[in-house]
C-alpha cells in the first residue's frame, strides 16, 4: 500500500499476458489483438481491412484471402469441417465482389486421426468446391504428435477475380444505404453448440453452412450499386454492423422486428441466455446498397433458395461514427455493441 493516502491508486488492469479464448471470439479483445500485435508488426492494407485484400495484377484485380478452420466437432448438423473450409474462403472472396478462381488447402493433422474420417472431410471439400465452381489446386500436409493438435485443422487460401468496375468495400458505405441479410441468423453457432455441449432440441437445428458467392454475383451482375458485402461469421450480425460502422464512419440502426431468426434458434438462444445477433452464420451475407435499390435486391436474392429468407433489417444513418443501435420491438432504442469475447451461457 502507498504510504501517502492521497497518492493516485492506479487501477490494476487485468490485461491478459497469454492468448485467451476471447482473443478469437470476433469481439473487442480480438480487435485489440489485431491492432496491438499483428498490424504493428506486419502493417495494414492501405485499402483498409476487409474479408479479402484486393491486389492489382497485370491490369486486373485479384482478391486474396486466407482462413483457418478449427471447428469442434468436425461433423455437425448441416455440414462438416471440410465444406466449412471451402465455403468460408469462397465467401470471403465473394465479399470483395470477386469470382472465386482457385483455392489452396493446408492440413495440420494429429497423429491418430482415422484415415476414413480424413477421406470424408476431403470428399466434402471436393463436393463443396464443385458446387462453387472452384478447384483446390495446391496444398500442404503436416502431422503433429498426438495431443499437440485437435484432430484436424484446415487452412484454405483463395484467389478470386474482381470484375472491372466492381468496387465493394466498407469505405463505400454511406448514410441512406439499406442493410440486407440473405437469410435467418445464428444457425451455425447454435447447431455446433448443440452437438458440442450435448444439448438436444425438439427441433434439430442445422447449420446454414453454404456458399453465398452466387448471391453476391446476382446483385453485382444486375448492375446494383453494391457498396459493401460481409459474411456474418464469428461475432454474428452485430459484430459486422459494428465493424462496418467504424470503418465507414457512419451510424447504423437495425430494427428488431425485421431481423430474421428461426423459431428454434431463438428458443435455443433464450434457454442458453445468448443473443442470436452475436451468434455465427456460415452461409449468410450482409449487403449494403442504396435504399432505393433495396426492393430490387430482395427480389434478386429471393430468387435463389439460399436467399429465400432475405430481408431488409436496417439502415445507415448520418450519426456518430461507429454507433450501432437497435430499434426494439417496443419502439425504444439501445446500443448494439461489440462484445468483449465470446458469449457465455449465464447462471440462471
Amino acid at each position, binding site marked *: 500500500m502507498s504510504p501517502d493516502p492521497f497518492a493516485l*491508486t492506479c*487501477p*490494476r*488492469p*487485468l*490485461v*491478459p499476458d*497469454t*492468448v*485467451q*479464448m*476471447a482473443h478469437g471470439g470476433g469481439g*473487442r*479483445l480480438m480487435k*485489440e489483438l489485431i491492432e496491438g500485435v499483428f498490424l504493428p508488426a506486419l502493417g495494414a492494407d492501405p485499402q483498409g481491412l476487409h474479408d479479402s485484400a484486393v491486389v492489382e495484377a497485370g491490369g486486373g484485380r485479384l482478391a486474396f484471402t486466407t482462413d483457418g478452420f478449427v471447428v469442434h466437432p468436425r461433423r455437425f448438423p448441416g455440414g462438416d469441417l471440410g465444406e466449412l473450409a471451402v465455403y468460408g474462403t469462397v465467401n470471403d472472396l465473394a465479399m470483395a465482389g470477386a469470382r472465386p478462381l482457385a483455392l489452396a488447402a493446408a492440413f495440420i493433422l494429429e497423429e491418430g486421426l482415422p484415415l476414413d474420417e480424413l477421406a470424408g472431410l476431403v470428399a466434402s471439400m471436393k463436393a463443396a468446391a464443385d458446387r462453387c465452381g472452384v478447384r483446390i489446386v495446391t496444398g500442404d500436409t503436416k502431422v503433429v504428435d498426438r495431443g499437440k493438435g485437435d484432430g484436424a485443422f484446415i487452412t484454405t487460401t483463395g484467389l478470386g477475380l474482381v470484375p472491372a468496375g466492381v468496387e465493394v468495400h466498407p469505405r463505400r458505405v454511406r448514410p441512406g444505404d439499406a442493410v440486407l441479410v440473405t437469410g435467418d441468423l445464428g444457425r451455425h453457432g447454435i447447431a455446433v453448440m448443440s452437438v458440442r*455441449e450435448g*444439448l438436444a432440441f425438439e427441433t434439430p437445428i442445422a447449420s446454414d453452412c453454404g456458399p453465398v458467392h452466387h448471391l453476391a454475383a446476382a446483385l453485382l451482375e444486375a448492375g446494383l450499386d453494391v457498396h459493401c458485402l460481409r459474411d456474418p461469421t464469428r461475432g454474428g450480425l452485430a459484430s459486422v454492423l459494428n465493424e462496418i460502422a467504424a470503418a465507414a464512419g457512419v*451510424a447504423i*440502426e437495425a430494427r428488431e422486428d425485421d431481423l430474421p431468426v428461426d*423459431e428454434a434458434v*431463438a*428458443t435455443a438462444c*433464450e434457454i*442458453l*441466455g445468448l443473443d442470436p445477433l452475436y451468434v455465427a452464420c456460415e452461409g449468410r451475407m450482409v449487403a449494403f446498397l442504396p435504399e432505393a435499390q433495396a426492393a430490387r435486391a430482395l427480389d434478386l436474392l429471393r430468387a435463389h433458395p439460399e436467399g429465400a429468407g432475405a430481408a431488409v433489417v436496417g439502415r445507415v444513418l448520418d*450519426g*456518430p461514427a461507429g*454507433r450501432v*443501435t437497435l*430499434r*426494439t*420491438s*417496443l*419502439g*425504444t*432504442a*439501445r*446500443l448494439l*455493441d461489440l*462484445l*468483449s*469475447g465470446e458469449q*457465455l*451461457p*449465464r*447462471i*440462471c
Partner: protein
Amino acid sequence: MRFVDEYRDGAAARTLAEAIRRRVTRPWTLMEVCGGQTHSIVRYGLDELLPPEVSLLHGPGCPVCVTPVAIIDQALAIAARPGVTFCSFGDMLRVPGSAEDLFAVKSRGADVRVVYSPLDALALARELPDREVVFFAVGFETTAPANALAVAQAKREGLANFSILVSHVRVPPALEAILASPQRRVDGFLAAGHVCAVMGTEEYLPLAAKHRVPIVVTAFEPVDLLQGILMAVSQLEEGRAEVENQYARLVQAGGNRPAQALIGEVFQGVDRTWRGIGPIPDSGLGLRPAYVAFDAARRFGVEGVGGPESPECQSGLVLQGLLKPMDCPAFGKACTPDHPLGATMVSSEGACAAYFRYRRFAPVEAP
C-alpha cells in the same frame, strides 16, 4: 416463440406504460431485485417508456456480482491445482479475483470447464474417477435446489471425487439490509420471480409489514416488468404495503416444496459476505455437517485464501441502488468488460454490464 412473444408485445407494453402514467401522482422509487430484470429494463429501454415520476434502482440480485473476491480467489487456487477439473457456469469465468480470472488460469493449462448444470459436473466426476471434479456453486435460492441435488446424489453414490465451492446467498436478508440502511431510497420492490418460484412469497410478508413497503413478485419480460411496476405504483398511490404476485403463471405462495426440502436437507443458513456490500448475518447457505465432506474449500484447504477488493470498484453502491453505473468515475474508462474492476461489469446480470452494453451513449433520437 410461445410464452415469450406475448410478453414482449409492443402494444401491450405501451398500454401498460400509459396506465402507469395515469396512475402516478408523485415521485416513487422502485428497485428491481434481480439482475435479469435489470438487463431486460435496459435492453428494452423500459425506463424510457415510464413517466418521470417513476425511478428504477437496480438491486443486488446478481449472484455473480455479489460473490466476494475471497471466494473467487479460492476458486482460482483450486482450479490451478493439477488433478482438478473445475466446473462453472459460464459467466463466472470472466469475474476478476484479486489478481486474475478463471480464463487466465485456464489459459495457463488449468482444466476449467463451462457446464450448464451441476448435474453435468456430477456426470464428469463419474466419467473421470482419477480427477477431483469441483463445481462452483454460486447463486441465489434459484440455483440452490439443483446444487443440493448434485451433492445429495454424490453422497448417495459415494462419489468421493466430487465437491462444490459454495457461495450461496438469499434474497430476503439483502432486502432487509437495504431497507434498514439510513441511506434507504427505495419505496417499493419488484421481487425476483424465479427466486420466488422456488421459495414462494410468504417469507416477504414480514418485510413488507415491518418496513411498510410494497413487494411485487415480478417476471422478466418487458410486459411483465411494466405490469409489476403498475402494481407497485398502485399500492404506493393507495397507501398499501402488500406482497403481490405478478408472476402468477409460475409462482405459488408456498413455492416449490420439494425444492425447498432438498435445500433444507443439504444446506443450512450461514453468515455471508457480499461483494462490495459486506457481511450480512444469516444471508447465505452453507453445507450441513452431514455433507461437509463435499465442501471444496475445506477439501483443498483454501478457506484462508482471499485478497482484497479493488478500491476503485464501487459495485457495492451500485448493488444497493445508491449509485447508477454511469455515475461511477471508472465506468467505461478504468472499468470495461474487457478490463473489469468488478463483477458487475462482466456478469450477464450485472448492472454495469447492462449499461455498458446497451446504454453507453445517450439514447439516440426517435425516428
